[in-house]
């Protein structure tokens, strides 16, 4: 098992995340799917960092940055989602279509 294995896992994770984001209607689940995609990317970054020569740990550092941003995004996103769930009394994103037209 080499780089390919990590990339396959990463692709699968990303695909699950993307599918979940597009298919699920629960706002909290969609947030979790976004986290899944971010972590899939993180995994590939780390794998590239480990296997490709001369990358000088840029991938690892980038993964740390992604984690920091993901934490911030999760905080703000969750706050927004909870706020909207409270006002709308539903987590279903189908109901949030006031911006249509």
């Amino acid at each position, binding site marked *: 098992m080499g780089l390919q294995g990590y990339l396959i896992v990463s692709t699968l994770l990303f695909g699950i995340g*993307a599918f979940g*984001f*597009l*298919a699920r*209607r629960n706002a909290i689940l*969609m947030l979790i799917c976004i986290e899944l995609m971010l972590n899939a990317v993180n995994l590939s970054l780390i794998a590239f960092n480990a296997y490709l020569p001369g990358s000088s740990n840029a991938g690892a550092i980038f993964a740390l940055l992604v984690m920091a941003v993901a934490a911030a995004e999760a905080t703000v996103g969750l706050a927004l989602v909870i706020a909207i769930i409270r006002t709308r009394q539903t987590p279903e*994103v*189908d109901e*949030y*279509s*006031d*911006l*249509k*037209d």
Partner: protein
Amino acid sequence: MPIETLIALIPALPLAGFLFAVLAGARLDRLPSHGHDDHGDGHADDHGGHSGHGGETHASHAETDDSGFRTGPSEEEQRATSPHAGHADDLANSNGADGVIPAESNDGLGQVGHVVEGGPQPVYRSWMVPTALVAVGWLFSMIVFASVVFGGNTYHVRVYEWIGSGSFRIQIAFLVDGLTAMLLLVVSTVGLLVHVYSIGYMNGDRGMWRFFAYLNLFMFSMLLLILGDNFLMLYVGWEAVGLCSYALIGFWYKKPSAAGAAKKAFVVNRVGDFGFGLGIMMIWTLLGTLDFGEVFARIGSLSPVAITVIGLLLFAGAIGKSAQFPLHVWLPDAMEGPTPVSALIHAATMVNAGVYMVARTNPIFSASPTAMWAVAGIGVFTAIFAAAIALTQNDIKKVLAYSTVSQLAYMFFALGIGAWVAAIFHLVSHGFFKGLLFMGSGSVIHGASGEQDMRYLGGLRDRMKWTYRTMVIGSLALAGIPIFAGFFSKDEILGEAFNRGYYLFYAVGVVVAFMTAFYTFRMIYMTFHGRWRGPRDAWRHVHESAPTMVAPLLILAVPTILAGLLLGLPPDGGAIHGWLEEVFRGAEEAGAGILPGSIAAAGNAGFALFGFGGLLLLIGASVGVAGIWVAHGWYVRDPEAPARFVARIPFGLGPGMYAASVNKYYVDDLYGLIWARGGVLVANALWWFDAKVIDGAVNGAGWLAQRIGGLLRRAQTGRVQNYGLGMAAGLVLVIVAYLVIRP
């Protein structure tokens, strides 16, 4: 003071007078209509009584203004409302006049102060400083004139560099040679006398300070025009006199016909000035300089076609300013202005600017036979055309106006055949005697309560002795009777035409001389002889004009009698030839305008009193006498004769010809049809284009954007997943495209 300083001061003095009159003039006049007359603060002086009406619309304000302090119609008001006063004008927008007058300048306009019974007498002092400055300027002009003419000097005074932009360098510089000196003589003398005359003529007009301000501005502009040593200064003066002409024609701007006439003069002049401007630009483009001396020295290096085009463009300006056919229509209408203005601007000075310009640029014209022919042809045609209109006009000022057009045409005729000196000679003598005639007609109008239709005048010679005598002197000069100025100058033109081989033009000129003598004395006989034909009330008020008005007439009568004898003897070789020799030397040596086979071409153009020249003089004098004799027969001995003559014209053409002449050969109507009506049609077509095509395009663009937006709005579902799907699809698309393109 050195002469150079005097020359620079000559235009500066009237400019100072203008500024003074504008800044202080209104405070110097005391008008009785206002309760207060001691604290002078500009506008309050004019409007003190009405300051409470600020919120009213202007039209009603003006009416309040009128009725507030007058007990009866004023003289100028009568003039404005007289059924015979002025004819409605094609280009005039009669109703527009009132609305555009700013309340600040709501003075003047025939609101005569002295009709208020028992009130304090009006005091007019605004004329003093402007007139004094013009008088000083006249003195300087005469010193310069004497130095140039008798001392044989030519002055070139550089004041400073006005424009220095790359290779475009224009000096403020004055050139005084023989030609400028002759113009200086006429402009300064007539200008001063008109100022003096206006003191009496404009007495009682609330706008007197404004009048003198404009007169001074005009004097400045005209002097700039004749003194400038480059085309740009000439052009600036040229436009500025046009502006002053506009302002003074429309001096009584509440009279719709005056406002319209001013507008017409301005617009018609623009047509000519456009050509003039193009000509100057062409000179600059081709020669890189506008300095007279340099342009004339290098004009020969241009191609003949270029010279001809420049000449014709310059002449277009002269046609406009000097009221030649087809741009003559503004000058007769310009008679709506006060009569001193007609005398100064529209007879003696401004209209001469075109003649001066062509004479000044004689090296250009003499290098182009085509341009010379154009000048001569327009001149001859306009001479007979305008004279044929003057025959039947009934308004005393219109007769003189058409006479002016005709006489100016004589000058162009002379210029076109290369008789430069004769043209300037006629300009000088015409300036004096036509100024005299116009001021005389103003005296008549003033004395006859504003009546200027000759059918309602008559018999004035008993009550206006001095006006009558001086006007007869002026008329004799205009008619070309020997010893008077006009005889020498006119016959010099005719003699030159004959010598140079223009036999047809000569014949036309002789006919015009006959017509001139006829209509001039028709005017004299209708105005001063016979019985008074106006209202009986008016006859009781007929009186000789004030001394300030008669004195200029008497003074002008002197050069009218003597100018010809002093300048023009012997014929064809008078003093004026020596004075102007230097200016026209190049053109004379080139023999411009001399036709092959003529007497002049054969080299024996010398004048012989008991030979051919004497015969020409005799013809010139006898047609003048004949014209007077016919006029006397028709308008004094047998008043029925004109009607019989009209009836005797074969084929029943008589009444039609008379109607055509009275209606100015329908040129004004034609222009009204083409330009005024045509302009409306074009404007309507453009309006349609604007409303339908331009607005349609703008609205169409909006409609299109709306429809496209309507289609695109469907993409906005408001569902987060749809947007996410779009992003994912876009990402896939980008990756696929990358993979496809990359190999």
